[in-house]
């Protein structure tokens, strides 16, 4: 896919170079971790260990992996409810994430948040939000604080194609450009918002163009190719960190599973899903590059998968063994005690 963009950016062009072996292996491992983690979460949901809503990221792994690879320590990340992989990408512990999914004491929110609401100050992950579009204004505020402090950091706000129609997105775009805030808006266009295909909800379906009237550059990227994502992210990062204000990246991607666990998925065909899965899978793509580039053998990759599975199984075990929160936890954390 050739990448489309709205305008030349003022950022210095970063030279396009293919990723080396270590980098490719890291992408492969990170994406595999997300996939196996989500598969396990789906399984635990089926067993009744995870309840409520549970939105899986399977199929979209290249997006967060490629973006995070271009960030620096101290940059902030915020997203919606489809957030498990983003937390793993921020370096949060799979055990703590899984234990939050099961609502246990060992979870990142001590069981009080659930799948949609986890946070880590330490890893600069700001949630985990259930109200569609909220993270866009919040992410703009994170960037505002960076600008205010002049700390050279930036924030990344991830949101969906459906969220892209919320009014507060455009209120945020306007302020972000008005004050040239260091914010990268990553639209994860997985082509559906629940059962609504983009063209049924958006008058302009090329979402990277949504910043034009605010003067925010936008670019459409093949979100199934982690290397393409990383390259685009580097450009956006250079732009934002260079004091040029916000940048929009529209990632064309796809979710394989239902919107959440209770989605009968009648709005798309099985064939459509299978086609993407067998021809455009982000993990298979990197696997192919690793093997064809003679960076790794099938056996090495299998061993890596085994390692990843072991970590995920350990996380699942922890999430089952961790006790339910103490009843006294019900009344804590409502207000900061002063």
């Amino acid at each position, binding site marked *: 896919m050739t990448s489309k963009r709205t305008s030349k950016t003022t950022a210095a062009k970063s030279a396009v170079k293919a990723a080396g072996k270590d980098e490719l292996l890291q992408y492969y491992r990170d994406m595999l971790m997300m996939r196996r983690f989500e598969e396990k979460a789906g399984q635990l949901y*089926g067993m009744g260990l995870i309840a409520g809503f549970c939105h899986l990221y399977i199929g979209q792994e290249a997006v967060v992996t490629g973006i995070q690879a271009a960030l620096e320590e101290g940059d902030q990340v915020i997203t919606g409810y489809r957030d498990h992989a983003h937390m793993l990408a921020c370096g949060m512990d799979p055990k703590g994430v899984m234990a939050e999914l099961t609502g246990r004491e060992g979870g990142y929110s001590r*069981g009080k948040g659930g799948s949609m609401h986890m946070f880590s100050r330490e890893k600069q992950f700001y949630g985990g939000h259930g109200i569609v579009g909220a993270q866009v204004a919040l992410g703009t505020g994170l960037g505002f604080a960076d600008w205010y402090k002049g700390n050279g950091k930036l924030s990344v706000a991830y949101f969906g194609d459906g969220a892209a129609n919320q009014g507060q997105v455009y209120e945020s775009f306007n302020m972000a450009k008005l004050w040239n805030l260091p914010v990268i808006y990553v639209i994860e266009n997985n082509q559906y918002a629940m059962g*609504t295909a983009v063209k049924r909800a958006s008058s302009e379906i090329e979402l990277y163009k949504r910043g034009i009237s605010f003067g925010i550059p936008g670019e459409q990227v093949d979100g199934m190719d982690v290397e393409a994502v990383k390259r685009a992210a580097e450009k956006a990062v250079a732009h934002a960190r260079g004091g040029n204000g916000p940048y929009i990246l529209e990632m064309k991607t796809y979710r394989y599973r239902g919107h959440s666990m209770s989605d009968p998925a009648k709005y798309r065909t099985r064939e459509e899903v299978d086609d993407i899965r067998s021809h455009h899978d982000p993990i298979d793509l990197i696997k192919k590059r690793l093997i064809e580039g003679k960076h790794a053998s099938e056996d090495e990759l299998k061993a890596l998968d085994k390692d990843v599975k072991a970590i995920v199984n350990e996380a699942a075990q922890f999430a089952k063994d961790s006790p339910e929160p103490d009843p006294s936890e019900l009344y804590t954390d409502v207000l900061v005690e002063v």
Partner: protein
Amino acid sequence: MSIEILMPALSPTMEEGTLAKWNIKEGDTVESGDVIAEIETDKATMEVEAVEEGVVAKLLVAEGTEGVKVNSPIAILAEDGEDASAVEAPSAKVETPASNDETPVSAPASGGSGSAAGGDEGGASKASLASDPEIPEGTKMVSTTVRDALRDAMAEEMRRDDTVFVMGEEVAEYQGAYKVTRGLLDEFGPRRVVDTPITEHGFAGLGVGAAFNGLRPVVEFMTFNFAMQAIDHIINSAAKTLYMSGGQMGCPIVFRGPNGAASRVGAQHSHDYSSWYANVPGLKVVAPYDAADAKGLLKAAIRDPNPVVFLEHELIYGESFDVPDVEDWVLPIGKAKVRREGTDVTITAHSRMVGFALKAAEILAEEGISAEVIDLRSLRPLDTDTIVQSVKKTNRIVCAEEGWGRMGVGAEIAAVVTAEAFDYLDAPPARVHQEDVPLPYAGNLEKLSLPGVDDIVKAAKAVCYAE
């Protein structure tokens, strides 16, 4: 080692389902991601994908089996290299309720009057419905889910008035996120059943504008949690304009959707807004419990010349109740309903809490306390006459609501009875409500946080000094 495939839970509230179809047979090789079966829940038919790979050794549940419990084994996979034919079925017999029951679960109870549909509540609701003067003698009762009753109300109003239309996220092609608008698109087409983008503030305002200009919108919020995006238009544009325009500009609109806690969906998706909207002059606020009220009050809300906030509850959508089979079932907004008569204590409740109040009344009856249960049905206007009259008889009151207590519905009712029946009270009014914290996700904490039957029983005993 062989792997058991368990009946998956496909939604937050699913406890059992029908194994509609197997897409695999014994001996097949499956890979993770393969569709292995189709499962029907009360909301939808869903495909189940394999998460493990292997060879199908045994199918433990026959196609078409109803009532398969979540987490019971439905098939066994042999892993790579294992002999599938040697795999043993688990000795514990799979629990499958009789699948030869010839009556479909949702079929109306034949004859109506004799059988109490909808379990525990059926009896209570039937008894009070029978004494309801609005239903002619001999009217046939049809067992209907709350979900379908709401749909029927919209469909009937759309048939009689072309200015009525339904708008919201996933209401048309997807048939409603909770399937309340099922079938409406087919009958009325995309002009009148409108899928919106996710843009609540925008479409709520659009709805208000359309109402100003002569239409009667029914705006569905996927849940009322998302109406917070739109509350400015509900209050500033819909509720206040008639007044600000000196009576010129009415706004006949219904804002409806599920309100309150669902099941384990966390703080941002579990908020009861009853007292918020009931606080606002210029709105009517309705919160029905059973299917007959849901239907009759929604039809009234659509016909009402004012903005009506119509609060439903996800956890009772699937419950069935008798609905009178009459030509045009419309109920008055603003009238409470005595669902159970009693002499010792009055219990007020609305929406899902009515079911809890009725159960509490049964328990109290066993202990010799006769409770009168008032289903508020409408929070604005609030039927204070019915409440005050009841308190004058029982001399005690417990006000139950699902939401937070502070500044709540119960606080208002307590103030009303204190002002209007002070001399009749034998105990201070008691309130039952959610704990004063955002709703936690963890199962044990969620349970501790939400008010239940026991809390009502306890409060009723306390005001009766029966501890």
